[in-house]
């Protein structure tokens, strides 16, 4: 009933063709929207993608949504393709939030910049939990920290999201674990049943049936709400370093099932998409369907998502270096956009904020490429308060490779 009212209201306003916001909705009449899912058909991302696409179609009258699976390279291919698509609002899509790691660490093959994406929304908060088999002989965080022999845990592969998260946890809360890679899909659960491995770390909602069936229990959780029944990783950390690592993992649990458009989508069209996304995720039918599918819907919209993504990307050089060492990856460059806090010694030494940390950086006269106000510039012209996009090599003298400053 309500939908019909809304639909007729939209229909009426389309007849009148008035108001800038509605001009956007009209834009989609008779258009085909491609929704890119960065995995093969089937599985979590595909389920969410198809659900969101179905209901966005409903809330953009006259539009047709087509789901396109673009799998490969751990979501990187799909994200690249989405990023490179024409920013006309007719290509949107979803991929793993874990690509934040890929961007921070500047992984090979990454051709996107999450900062520049046009964010539409996210559909879920998906707390992750540490699952242990019922006969594993370990049950609590304490057991994991004090084990005499490292406890075996399964992950899908080195470099995968589950591997990255597990490594981060080992470091942050000092777990004694031995990682066994090669368990893809639900093979980790079977391995736990056999006793090959004692546990695994991953999405709580996907492990929940396993626990309900009595095969295992959760030791602790990352990203659970205040009312959660499990110990929270954020309360288990004792060091600053640990806290920043857990915060990074947690930010990803909160930003699950993203929907984004390529950079540069016109303001009004992006707004229309966001509105449709908002209506879709509040649609009673979608919520009912999600409930049946057993997938949580905890949405967040537009700029809030963009901010959260930027916060996750803006890690201090120390954290990045730490993450890099944990993942055994060499970090080449970091990039931030920030204002200069101080400029000393004729522009040879500058400080600026990177993430939540102040960085002192030695500007090279020959190697650092400086642009000021679009024109080639010199380090002597740098001034306190200038807003600069800085890329620099973390560690040592933090030497910038490029600085693009507004005059």
């Amino acid at each position, binding site marked *: 009933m309500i939908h019909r009212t809304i639909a007729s209201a939209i229909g009426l306003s389309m007849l009148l063709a008035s108001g800038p916001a509605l001009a956007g909705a009209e834009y989609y009449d008779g258009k085909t929207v*491609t929704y890119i899912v960065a995995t093969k058909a089937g599985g979590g991302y595909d389920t969410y993608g198809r659900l969101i696409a179905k209901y966005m179609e409903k809330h953009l009258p006259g539009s047709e949504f*087509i789901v*396109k699976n673009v799998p490969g390279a751990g979501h990187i291919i799909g994200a690249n393709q989405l990023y490179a698509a*024409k920013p006309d609002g*007719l290509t949107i899509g979803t991929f793993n939030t874990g690509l934040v790691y890929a961007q921070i660490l500047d992984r090979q093959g990454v051709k996107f910049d999450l900062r520049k994406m046009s964010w539409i929304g996210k559909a879920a908060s998906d707390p992750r939990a540490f699952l242990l088999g019922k006969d594993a002989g370990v049950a609590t965080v304490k057991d994991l920290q004090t084990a005499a022999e490292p406890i075996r845990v399964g992950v899908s592969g080195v470099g995968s999201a589950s591997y990255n998260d597990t490594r981060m946890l080992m470091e942050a809360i000092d777990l004694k674990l031995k990682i066994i890679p090669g368990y893809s899909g639900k093979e980790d659960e079977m391995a736990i049943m056999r006793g090959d491995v004692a546990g695994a770390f991953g999405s709580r909602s996907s492990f929940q049936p396993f626990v309900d069936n009595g095969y295992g229990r959760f030791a602790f959780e990352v990203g659970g709400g205040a009312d959660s029944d499990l110990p929270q990783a954020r309360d288990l950390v004792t060091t600053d370093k640990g806290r920043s690592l857990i915060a990074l993992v947690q930010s990803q649990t909160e930003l699950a099932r993203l929907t984004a458009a390529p950079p540069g989508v016109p303001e009004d069209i992006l707004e229309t998409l966001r509105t449709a996304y908002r209506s879709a995720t509040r649609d009673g039918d979608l919520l009912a369907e999600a409930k049946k599918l057993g997938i949580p819907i905890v949405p967040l919209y537009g700029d809030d998502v963009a901010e959260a993504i930027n916060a996750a990307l803006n890690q201090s050089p120390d954290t990045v270096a730490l993450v890099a060492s944990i993942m055994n990856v060499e970090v080449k460059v970091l990039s931030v956009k920030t204002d200069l806090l101080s400029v000393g010694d004729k522009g040879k030494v500058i400080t600026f904020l990177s993430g939540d940390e102040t960085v002192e950086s030695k500007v090279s006269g020959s190697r650092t490429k400086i642009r000021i106000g679009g024109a080639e510039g010199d380090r002597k012209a740098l001034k306190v308060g200038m807003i600069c996009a800085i890329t620099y090599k973390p560690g040592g003298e933090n030497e910038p490779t490029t600085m693009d400053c507004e005059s």
Partner: protein
Amino acid sequence: MLAIFAGMVAMAVGFPAEGRFLPFVIGIPGTVLCAIQLAIEVDAARRDPGGGLSDGERRKLRTAGILFCWLVAFMTAILLFGFLYAMPVALFAFLRLQQREPLILSLALSAGGLVGMWFIFDVMLRLPLHGGFVIEWLFG
């Protein structure tokens, strides 16, 4: 034939340098086996220097080459113009030019293929196929 041996040996030699445990375990014996087989073949070839291709064999290779070129043409057309547009044109071209089928039959089969593909993938399954680089560039 020797080119394939050489190619496989080269590949097998190229692999282990990059690989780890198992690629070594497989790659090195693979290389040795290739070398043995090569030796056998060379030995056989030396004993029987008859060599040279007969006319029939040459004609066979030529036809295979032409067909392979068609395969490349099909692929290029699909990559550039997408399945939906490239397929009927490629089908028609092949049937008419290569096979010299009657015009009506060629047209009918190509059109049938087009309708079938459009109906199955566009209407029924709503599965997006490769759109073609030129088409995507032109129409976004």
